[in-house]
């Protein structure tokens, strides 16, 4: 089994597209689309990398990121934030909260793949 990535995103066709390209690249992709229960999903099996959307139903990606970085089990897991907003303050907030990378939609598949590979490198 390849390295595990958890994609937390509520847009089903983005989930399908990213899952496809990452699976093809050898990743085992788990997905989740609800903000409120995202932490429970993470704790069921801590992944090697988390791709986290900012605007999720139930709970914001920033709040989830804060929880991830506040817990020993998940504090060191790299998190790549996805957002439709690319303003500097959004980027700063994500980085301040501990995001490893910040990607603004719409992104290309190549960008996603390149970022995931870079983050997976120890």
């Amino acid at each position, binding site marked *: 089994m390849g390295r595990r990535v958890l994609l937390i995103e*509520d*847009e089903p*066709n*983005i989930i*399908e*597209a*990213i899952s*496809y*390209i990452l699976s093809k690249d050898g990743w085992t992709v788990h997905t989740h*689309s*609800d903000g*409120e229960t995202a932490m429970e999903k993470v704790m069921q099996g801590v992944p090697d990398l988390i791709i986290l959307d900012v*605007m*999720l*139903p*139930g*709970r*914001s990606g920033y709040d989830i990121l804060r929880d991830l970085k506040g817990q020993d089990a998940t504090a060191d897991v790299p998190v790549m934030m996805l957002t*439709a*907003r690319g*303003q500097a303050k959004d980027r700063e907030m994500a980085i301040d909260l501990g995001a490893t990378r910040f990607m603004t*939609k*719409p*992104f*290309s*598949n*190549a960008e*996603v793949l390149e970022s995931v590979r870079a983050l997976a490198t120890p």
Partner: protein
Amino acid sequence: MPDRILTGTRARNRRLDLGLRQAHVAKVVGISGSYLNLIEHNRRRIGGKLLADLARVLEIDAALLADDTTDAILLPIKEAAAAFPEATVEDARAEELVARFPGWAALVAAQRRRIAQLEERTEALSNRLAHDSQIANSLHEVISTATAIRSTASILAETPDLDREWQARFHTNIDTDSERLAQSSQALLGFLDMEMEAGDTQTESAMEQVEAKMAQSGFYFSGIEAGDTLHFDDVEDPSARAILQDWANSASKDAKRLPLDTFSQAARATAYDPARLASRFDVPLDMIFRRLAHLPHDLDHPLMGLAVCDAAGVVTFQKPVLDFRLPRSGSACPLWPLYQALTQPGRAIRRVVRLPGRAHTPFECFAIATPVGDVSFASEARVTATMLVRPARNEDVPDVVGPGCRVCTVQDCASRRHPSLV
């Protein structure tokens, strides 16, 4: 005062420009030459009929000859020059411009004021576009759909060996996403149209300024808990300041009746149940709503929003939360429990609602309408409705309420006032 050109000087300059003799002008307006001389040297103030007569002879608008013209025209002209420092203007001769060519000077001043007004409006609109949650949601929908299409199309284009099942699946995804993109683009246009209409009549409303001020501190002021009197001197708009002061007075009373530590503990113990808290503290339900909505975020309380409206349904205060925000323009959906409470004062209402469309957070809403102020036999009771809003558990089956008719996708709605643009 070097910036002040008085009426006399202006009249003298104008007369000389026109090549008129002092004695002639004095005669026409019915005064002596020596009196006109005193006027022209600013040793006599004039107004009324004499000012009007003198202006007529000098072929100039009386308003441009009056003393108060200086500040109204000269200052904007100087501002205009300062706004374009790269332009070479005869700065020292601005007063002369006003005196000799009052009409042209007034035009430059009027244009400067118009530019300043348009700049303010542009900034207000820009702030709205950046901070309005409905526009943000709509834009998010457009960008997310575009992302899905781009990603899926790339896979189709760059994967020649894609098997037929995946190909069919991705083609279907692009088809559904392109339809969604068309719809969400129209919704976005609808929001922008509404914003532009609002921008035609106002810049930043008092409510927006209040929200901005409250948002700066996370809708929480620790001074309230300490019994401090809050001042909002940094808020320029007196209406906004009055709303904030009213809020602070009400919040102080709530804090005295429901001290933070005791209330926080009880809120957690009752799972933030407003009815149980009202019973436990023996206070009105609307006070519990306000207190819950203003609990400090750093104490790990759940997110809660609040809306208050008067008997006419005008939102007088709101704390937005996630997607929840009632429109500023007064065109909110009447299905919000806030408005339903107004029809049955005293009745506590609880409903789980969500906005139409995909992936919107369901909200648990608690609302009640209550009389406010002193009771009197001489006048009608003043009623306000208060609604507490918080994200609901997904297992609740929510009713759908719209963001406003023009951008609401629910077609068969008995409460619809306007056709949808979506």
